[in-house]
């Protein structure tokens, strides 16, 4: 294994992670809810919609974050390699998969592992394993 020292950013990663954990803790303590983003979005699409207010408010916070960040700092410019068709396919898989598996990187990965939940650990291993395998296939087998 070769570490990509030119892109590895341990301190900002840890700092950003602490903010994410603080947000999840705050949400659990203030609202009594788990900060699982796929679940928060998905709950708005249910036939019997409930709790529209706090769900929409949480998502508004996420959407508004770049504007707040850019008041003080320059927003980092992302590199999105995937083309339009691939983004469409990936989006559908992420949407359906997270709902079928009851969670994503935030709900299972951050919140679930914070609760030491074996169920969330199993889910995290499944999506990380599939992520590793997919990138391996795309970058080292197909390409």
């Amino acid at each position, binding site marked *: 294994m*070769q570490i990509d020292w030119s892109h590895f950013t341990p301190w900002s990663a840890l700092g950003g992670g602490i903010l994410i954990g603080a947000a999840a803790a705050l949400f659990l*303590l203030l609202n009594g809810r788990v900060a699982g983003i796929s679940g928060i979005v998905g709950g708005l699409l*249910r036939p019997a919609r409930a709790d529209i207010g706090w769900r*929409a408010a949480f998502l508004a*916070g996420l959407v508004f974050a770049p504007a707040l960040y850019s008041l003080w700092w320059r927003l980092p410019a992302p590199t999105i390699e995937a083309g339009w068709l691939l983004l469409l396919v990936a989006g559908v898989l992420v949407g359906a998969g997270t709902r079928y598996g009851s969670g994503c990187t935030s709900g299972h*990965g951050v919140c679930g592992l914070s609760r030491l939940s*074996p169920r969330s650990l199993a889910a995290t291993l499944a999506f990380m394993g599939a*992520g590793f395998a997919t990138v391996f296939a795309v970058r080292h087998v197909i390409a």
Partner: protein
Amino acid sequence: MHALGAFAAGLIFGLGLIVSGMTDPSKVIGFLDLAGRWDPSLAFVMVGAIIVGMIGYAIARERAVAFLGGAMHFPAARQIDQRLILGGLVFGVGWGLAGFCPGPAIVSLGAGQDKAVVFVLAMLAGMALYEIAEYWLARRGRLRAESRP
């Protein structure tokens, strides 16, 4: 008040995703590319988030009501079943293909990334597809149960 708490939590969550670099799909894919030049940053994000999250959970588990009122909604499911694993695998394939998971995609939408708009719309379609499938399967199950003698 619940909406205000949710807005603040979403805002801080989003700032964390930006600061950590996780809104950049190439950084996420750099983590998932174990066989290439590996960027361990995502693991550091998870460690930071989980340590603080554990402290929050340790305080929360002792409480019966949330600070803003209302019950504590801890996830009740414990079972590790086919849904959980298959769902995780499908999500992981999509995650690896684009480098986006739901949180960073929604934050990037807020940053005005046109590719994130497409991804989020497709993600909503995938979630809607799940709801429709669940609805039909439940309906079919009900009809079958009713037709049983």
